């Protein structure tokens, strides 16, 4: 007989938080990662080693709203819901469309994708270049951390046991003038885990680079982003010179260290990551999107 498990499904966020304050629980938003992670053999239910707390139904965690130029996204918004929402930037929608297939997108959530902290997490490269901040809530109140500080290693995040990721904040994302690209390379066009992914962000004013950011997925334990390399390009005339491009690509060549696995090879991942970077840098015209 299957063993009994304890599961909670409160009507409100504050009850959920006070339970979390008492007990370390496994949080289930959409469950699309948790269920796979704890899968048992055929005919046996998943074995989740902690009490389970369901948060997928909490409307407090599903709000999407604008505050000044920032976009706040409730962590339990499903991918399907975000695709329907007019506030969500096109680039993020394009990234979401590459995730799994409609059935999974109806369950999976943006907050779940972050807290799962997979090296190949599909929304992560974009969230990194958006400088996403995460609002964590507990009985003690709120705190805000940068996504790059929150995700520490594969499946390791800086969440205290009594906290819930409540909102994802994309600062200044509703400001006009930036151009964002996202490319996911998988073995097929749906239901695929990224072999490489790339996000690029650029803002140009007066033919000079105002702001530029890059993040790479599936080529290291977490997203690869380097503020130092990005800084070298600030204020440079656009389009970039061949020398500048070569030097940035060479810099990333030093820090991107992918691995061989059952999905692809290290050589492939690195080649493609650098190709996508060079292509982004080489593009001589950008329409803000």
């Amino acid at each position: 007989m299957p063993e009994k498990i304890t599961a909670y499904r409160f009507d409100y966020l504050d009850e959920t938080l006070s339970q979390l304050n008492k007990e370390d629980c496994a949080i289930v938003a959409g469950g699309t990662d948790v269920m796979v992670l704890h899968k048992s053999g055929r005919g046996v239910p998943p074995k989740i080693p902690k009490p389970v707390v369901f948060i997928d139904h909490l409307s407090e965690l599903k709000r999407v709203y604008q505050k000044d130029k920032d976009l706040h996204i409730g962590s339990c918004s499903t991918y399907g819901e975000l695709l329907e929402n007019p506030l969500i930037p096109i680039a993020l929608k394009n990234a979401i469309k590459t995730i799994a297939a409609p059935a999974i997108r109806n369950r999976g959530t943006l907050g779940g994708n972050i807290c799962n902290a997979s090296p190949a997490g599909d929304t992560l490269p974009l969230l990194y270049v958006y400088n996403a901040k995460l609002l964590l809530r507990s009985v003690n109140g709120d705190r805000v951390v940068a996504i790059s500080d929150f995700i520490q290693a594969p499946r390791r995040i800086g969440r205290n046991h009594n906290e819930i990721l409540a909102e994802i904040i994309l600062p200044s994302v509703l400001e006009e003038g930036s151009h964002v690209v996202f490319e996911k390379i998988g073995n097929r066009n749906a239901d695929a885990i990224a072999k490489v992914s790339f996000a690029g962000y650029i803002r140009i004013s007066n033919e000079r680079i105002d702001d530029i950011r890059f993040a790479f997925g599936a080529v290291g334990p977490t997203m690869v982003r380097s503020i130092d390399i990005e800084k070298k390009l600030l204020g440079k005339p656009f389009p970039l010179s061949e020398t500048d491009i070569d030097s940035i690509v060479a810099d990333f060549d030093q820090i991107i260290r992918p691995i061989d696995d059952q999905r692809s090879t290290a050589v492939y991942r690195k080649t493609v990551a650098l190709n996508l970077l060079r292509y982004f840098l080489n593009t001589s015209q950008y329409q803000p999107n």
Partner: protein
Amino acid sequence: MRLKDISTPVPKKDHKDKVSGQLPYISDVKVDNMVYGVLYRSPIAYGKIKSIYVPTLPEGYDVVGAEDIPGPNYVKIIKQDQPIFANEWVNYIGEPILMLVGKDLNTLYGLRDKVKVEFEEHQPIYTLDEAIDQISSASFVSYEFGKGLDIISAIEQDAHQIVEEEYTTGYQEHVYLEPQGMLAVYKDDEIVVHGSMQALYYIKNALLSALACGDDEVRVVQSPTGGGFGGKEEFPSMMACHVAIAANAVKKSVMLVFDRHEDMVVTTKRHPAKFKYRTALDKEGNILSMCVDVFLDGGANEGLSSVVLQRSLLNSAGVYNIPHFHAKGHVLKTNTVPNGAFRGFGAPQSFAGIESHMGHLSKYAQLDPLEYKRKYLVKQGDPTITKGNFRDPILMEEMIEDLLDASDYNKKKEEFQRFNQQNLRYKKGIGTSVFLHGCGFTGSGERDHIKATVKLVKSKDGKVLLKISNSDMGQGIYTTLSKIVAKELDLPLEQVSYPDPDTKEVPDSGPTVASRTTMIVGKLLERAAKKLKAEWKSGEEQEVFEHYVHREMIPWDEKTFTGDAYPAYSWGVNFVEVEVDTLTGIVKLEKVYGNYEVGKAIDDRIMKGQIDGGLAQGLAYGYLEKMTTKQGKIQQKSISDYGPPTSLDVVPIESKLFDNPYADGPSGAKGAGELTLIGGAPAVQSAIEDALQTSFQQIPVTAEVIMESLERKLVNRVD
């Protein structure tokens, strides 16, 4: 419903149950006194078992192993080299050693973790290349035939040049929707095995041997089968032995069902292959002679590999009349999962190889690949490479012309050239393949081994039942074979039915393999129906039988590899257009065309299902699906890691059928199931080659392979 033109589509007989989700597959079944089985499998690739430790089992739990087998310890297929439960040597990771049975799966998994087997490990052979290096000891079987090597070497002496190429093909996994499953129902006087299967009598014969019992003590019933693709030809025999032996030993019904992970790592795959071509050309690039060496990775035991090799060799010259052709082939043993039947059965490897080689040779003649291939196309009356004869009309020229028009081939080539000059990132290309498939068993298999018999039963109220041992695994034979009988008897289709086959009720009409069911079994049914019509007595119960009659041609001799290898051939042409991303190596299919000649389609929509599914599977074999082993272990254990195509990877397939009725097929029909897969891989490879203006010597041409080739090109340019 009465049938005028047999090709007019009708709703499939099992349509409603399937789309409503009501059809119970084997894993949905529960019977009284049923326990589950889980297999303990070898964790090592090659070694001798020294000791087996099984933990103390709770009440109601048992261990079943080699000592419980009443008969000899091998799965009866061709050779006696596949143990039911390995008890002396293990030859691959995942080989079954024993089975634990009991009520609760969770308890069984826990007990299995405590089983310990001590081995004396030996040095395994992990790869085909390692096996080729030790060919004298690693070869299971080999054949050689064709023009004498002395003649060929004389031709080579005078040739303008010799072109040598090596070509490799990878694994392919069936990914049937329903994983393998088998249930043995224990009764006092018989054991009834139900399961997902393609070959009822293969299983029955394996059970008669393993259980050493009488013919009426064991019975095999096919459950609804969610896809087979050859993966349920010989593999289910082993699972059937496991559950039947266990049921016999513990006197309970035993269920064994794999989850996807287990299915992917332990069941048979398409044989990885290596081809070596050596072709002599004259100054104009014309072929003077060609030698082909074929090496198939058989995996740990022989299984059906010798027959797979035969089909591989028989297709080694493709659809071409090559002057002075010689071929040789080996199946080699490696300490990896045994490879077996898979839609096409050795032919997809050969066609990928020969189409690739011909495409590359066309450069020496400075011709478009398709133009070059057309110079060598076989024509009616031409000899086959085994001194048989292509005696029926061949419509290939017409089919090619039609696709040249439909695809606007020449214009498109120019368009793509312009596009490719302008676009630095994306490159477009168009590729083609021309192919055939021999219908029915290779050589004299139908006459000497299968000897098919069919039976029709008519009830008092005029209903007719098909009593045959063939499986509907989704390909639609419940419908198509019923149509053949209804048409011949001039009955409404509703009055003809085809119950799930049960060996107690049906004669052996052969396995559901080798593109034989419609043509061979269908023809027997048509003849049986004709006989029944002649003898029809209203209000009486009647039975008629029909037995296989061999079409007398040039007799097949397996020793010399000469004669007519097949009674008939089906034909196909594919054109494929792709766009390749040179930054990532990602291939996007843009257009896919297929023209096919299968005699006469028994149902146009069912045929379209075969075309769309077969071609998607064949295309994916060429560029998408990738399976590898590392130290004898399959690396891709999930569907997402392996990557069969989704609906977002395939485009609508534009296909057309050419009628060419075949006298020995029902309503003129020939085989169709395997043909549709074969052209996919070579066409997609040649399209990628056209886009990138380069050549590949392997499939799948994955994004990784493409990037490696582009990087190499870049380095060469810099040098």
